[in-house]
C-alpha cells in the first residue's frame, strides 16, 4: 500500500512536470470579436499547418474584450469589429484585416420582406412592438441584442443611429447565441455578422437591399464595419508574422471564401 502510494505520487509528479516543461513558448494569442472568431480560427489552422511549430490560439469574448486584453497584454492581438474605436484604443496599432456586414435576422417563418432603417431603429428602441406594425403577423416582437461590450452591437447602433436599446430586449453574449435564439423563436429579431448567416435564420433586406457580399462591397448595404487587429508596440514577431499571413493574398482569399469581405 505504501509503495503503491509512492509510485503513483511519483508518476503524478512526472506527468505534471512533463506538462509544465513546455515553458512559455512563442504562442500567438488572439481574443475579441465573436463575429470574427470562427474566421480567425480557420486562419490559425491554416497558418499552423503551413508553419509547424507555431502556435496560434483564438478566444472570443467580444470586441471590448479584444481591446482590453490587447491593452493589458493578456493577448498579443485583439480582434475588434467596431465602426469607430474607443478612446482608450488610441495607443494600439489598428490594422484592418477584413470587412463585415451586419445583417438583420428573423426566424425563417417570418415573412417580412423589407425594413427601413427607421423601422429598424424604432423596433430596437421599443417604439414598434408588434410585427403587424411593419406588415407582419399580429405578434409582439422579441428583440435580441448583444451585451454592451460587443463590437457588432456598437457598430449596429452607431450606423443606424439614435438607438437606445429597449428595456425589454433580450441580451446574449455572442453572435452565435443570437443566431440560436432567433432560430428558436418565431417572433424574434436580432442582428448578426454577415459571415455567420446560415439557413436557420433569415436575413431581412434593409432599405431594399439584402446583406449579400455584392451589396456590401458595392456600398448599397449600409451596415458595414471593418475588422481590426489591435496590437501594442511591443507585439511579438511571431504575432507580426501571423498578421502578415492574414493580410497576404492567401489569407485574404480564405477570408473571402469563408464569406467575409477582404480588407481592401
Amino acid at each position, binding site marked *: 500500500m505504501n509503495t503503491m502510494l509512492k509510485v503513483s505520487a511519483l508518476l503524478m509528479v512526472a506527468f505534471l512536470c512533463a506538462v509544465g516543461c513546455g515553458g512559455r513558448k512563442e504562442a500567438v494569442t488572439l481574443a475579441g470579436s465573436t463575429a470574427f472568431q470562427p474566421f480567425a480560427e480557420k486562419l490559425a489552422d491554416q497558418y499552423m499547418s503551413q508553419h509547424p511549430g507555431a502556435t496560434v490560439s483564438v478566444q472570443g469574448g467580444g470586441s471590448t474584450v479584444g481591446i482590453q486584453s490587447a491593452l493589458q497584454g493578456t493577448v498579443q492581438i485583439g480582434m475588434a469589429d467596431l465602426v469607430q474605436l474607443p478612446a482608450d484604443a488610441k495607443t494600439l496599432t489598428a490594422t484592418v484585416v477584413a470587412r463585415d456586414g451586419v445583417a438583420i435576422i428573423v426566424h425563417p417563418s417570418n415573412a417580412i420582406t423589407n425594413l427601413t432603417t427607421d423601422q429598424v431603429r424604432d423596433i430596437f428602441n421599443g417604439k414598434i412592438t408588434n410585427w403587424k406594425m411593419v406588415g407582419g403577423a399580429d405578434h409582439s416582437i422579441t428583440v435580441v441584442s448583444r451585451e454592451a*461590450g460587443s463590437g457588432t452591437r456598437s457598430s449596429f447602433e452607431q450606423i443606424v443611429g439614435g438607438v437606445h436599446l429597449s428595456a425589454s430586449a433580450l*441580451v446574449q453574449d455572442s453572435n452565435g447565441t443570437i443566431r440560436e435564439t432567433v432560430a428558436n423563436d418565431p417572433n424574434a429579431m436580432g442582428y448578426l455578422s454577415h459571415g455567420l448567416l446560415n439557413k436557420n435564420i433569415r436575413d431581412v433586406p434593409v432599405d431594399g437591399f439584402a446583406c449579400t457580399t455584392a451589396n456590401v462591397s458595392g456600398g448599397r448595404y449600409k451596415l458595414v464595419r471593418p475588422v481590426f487587429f489591435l496590437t501594442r508596440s511591443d507585439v511579438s514577431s511571431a504575432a507580426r508574422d501571423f498578421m502578415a499571413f492574414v493580410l497576404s493574398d492567401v489569407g485574404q482569399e480564405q477570408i473571402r471564401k469563408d464569406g467575409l469581405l477582404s480588407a481592401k
Partner: protein
Amino acid sequence: MKRIDEIIARPLLAAIAFSALASLLLIAVFILKEGLPFMARIGFRDFLGSSDWQPQEGHFGIFPMIVASLGVTLGAMAIGAPLGIAGAIFLCEFVPRPVMRTVKPAIELLAGIPSVVFGFLGVMVLAPLVRTHFGGPGLSLLTAAIILGIMVLPTVTSISADAIMAVPGAFREGALALGATRWQSVYMVILKAARSGIIASVILAMGRAIGETMAVIMVAGNTVRVPHSALDPVCTLTAKIAMEMASASGLHRQSLFAIGVVLFVVIMILNALAMTAIRSRKGASS
C-alpha cells in the same frame, strides 16, 4: 532528543495552514477591497435601489438584478423544496430500506450533472414550452426558476433525508405504540424532530440557487429590467457579473466586484442561518 520530523512537523504544518487560509482570505479581501470603496463612492441607496444600469454613462443601479436573483431563487425553492422534502419523507418512511438505499444515491447523481446541461435542456425543451403555452419570449424568470428548482432537488432531498433518518427510532416506535398511523407519526413527531435539518437543507439549497450562473445565463434572457410578470426575461446578479466581466474596466470592473460583495454577504447570512439551524437540532436532540 527530539526526532527531526517532530521538530519540523509543527511549524511546517502551521505554515501550510497559514498559506491555505491566507489564499482563502486573499479572495475575500480582494473582492471586498475592490467592491466596498465602489459602493461607498456610488452610495448604497443608488447602487442597491436604482434601476438604471448604464455603465458607460456611470449609472450602476442593480435593483432589477437583485429582484431577479430573489425571484428566481424563491421560485426555485417553491418548486424544489416541497418536492424535495416530499421525496425525502417518502423514501425514508414509506419505502423499504433497500429501495431507499439505491434511490437516494441515484437522486444525488442529479447533483453531479453539470449546470450547463441543465441550461441547454432549458433552452431546447423548456423555453419553447413556456413560450407556446404561457406566452412571452420563453427565456424568462419562470424558465430559470423551474430549471433551478430541478437543480436544487438533490440537495433538498438528500439533506432532508439525512435529517429524517437521524431521528431516533424511539420517536417512531413511541408514536406507533400510541396508535398513530405511519403518516400521523411522520407529521406529528418525525417532521418536528427533523425540522432544523430540513430547514438547513432548504437554506443551503437557496445558497446554491442564488449562486448559479451558467444555467441562468442560458435561460433567463438577461434583460436588465424589473420583471412585470414571471414570463419576463430577467438578469440575475451572477449573470451580470459573468456577461460583463471580461470587457469591463475601471469603475465598471469595480461595480462587478461590488455585486460580488452583495452575493458574498447574502451567502454568508444564509450560511450562518443554516448553521444555527443545524446547531439547534444538535442541541435539541442531545
